[in-house]
């Protein structure tokens, strides 16, 4: 029994589920549910539909390169049955699955970190550059405490510090 992947959303198609469409050139399109089949009939491109795996992979939402994916590859060479190998495989599946889940969680965490620091730095640079639009440079020279020191700067951003010094 083989667990196939849905052509549209790349989820696993379990036996007895979904529908498969055979094109006249014998290419088989398997779909996990009618949602995916309907989207295919509407000629939607899975890379452009946001909820599919293809989109998420393409746009860096999910982990793309990982050694754990290698274990799940489709192999056309049949393995000779060996009880010990099967036992080891069953044990390994759990372990590999755990590793994969952990790595995915880490990837997600990294991705969700945001770019707060970067935004802050850019804002500080812009403020330093174009403060003359808000205040005349002469006025600023007389009283430098008018605007600039109001930025809160974290310790871990030496760049802003430097910019302020230059100003």
């Amino acid at each position, binding site marked *: 029994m083989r667990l196939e992947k849905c052509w549209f959303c790349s989820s696993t198609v379990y036996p007895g589920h979904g529908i*498969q469409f055979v094109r006249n050139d014998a290419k088989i399109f398997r779909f996990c549910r009618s949602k995916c089949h309907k989207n295919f009939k509407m000629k939607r491109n899975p890379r452009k539909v946001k909820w599919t795996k293809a989109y998420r992979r393409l746009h860096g939402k999910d982990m793309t390169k990982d050694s754990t994916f290698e274990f799940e590859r489709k192999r056309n060479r049949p393995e000779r049955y060996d009880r010990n190998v099967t036992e080891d495989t069953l044990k390994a599946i759990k372990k590999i699955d755990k590793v994969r889940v952990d790595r995915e969680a880490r990837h997600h965490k990294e991705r969700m970190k945001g770019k707060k620091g970067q935004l802050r730095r850019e804002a500080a640079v812009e403020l330093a550059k174009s403060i003359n639009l808000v205040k005349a440079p002469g006025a600023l020279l007389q009283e430098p405490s008018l605007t600039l020191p109001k930025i809160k700067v974290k310790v871990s951003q030496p760049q802003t510090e430097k910019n302020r010094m230059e100003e």
Partner: protein
Amino acid sequence: MAASNSSKLFRVGRSILGGLSNNALGASRPSSQLADVDFLSQQTRTFIQMRTNLKVVDNSGAKRVMCIQALKGKKGARLGDVIVASVKEAHVGGKVKKGDVHYAVVVRAAMQRGRCDGSEVKFDDNAVVLINKQGEPIGTRVFGPVPHELRKKKHLKILSLAQQIA
């Protein structure tokens, strides 16, 4: 500054990737095929019944046949069923002529058919292979994919002649 540079690079890389992927997809699906699929998916497909036109996918000489009787089922024939068909278009010099009446097996049907495991299968078009009274194919070749359900229906000869089994 370094951060902004790197983000720009990333954006460029993504656009290149996107272009590549689009090209790859376009190459794998020719437009003519797409049009065919579109035409078939416009309507709900139904049984093969009397006056259904079917493509003949063997080298018996017939091009198009019309179903004049489904031999099984009240509503009509489905994938793998046997029908009686009248030859409407034929190549000159073939084994069958226009106007002949033959048995035929439905080897491809656009209407979905349940498989033994509960999933479903459907094809691009409605196609038959002509057989004689004994159930042996008249032609010596079968074109295009055929379903493995034919084995259950005891059309082993067609299965062995087929190019692909889906």
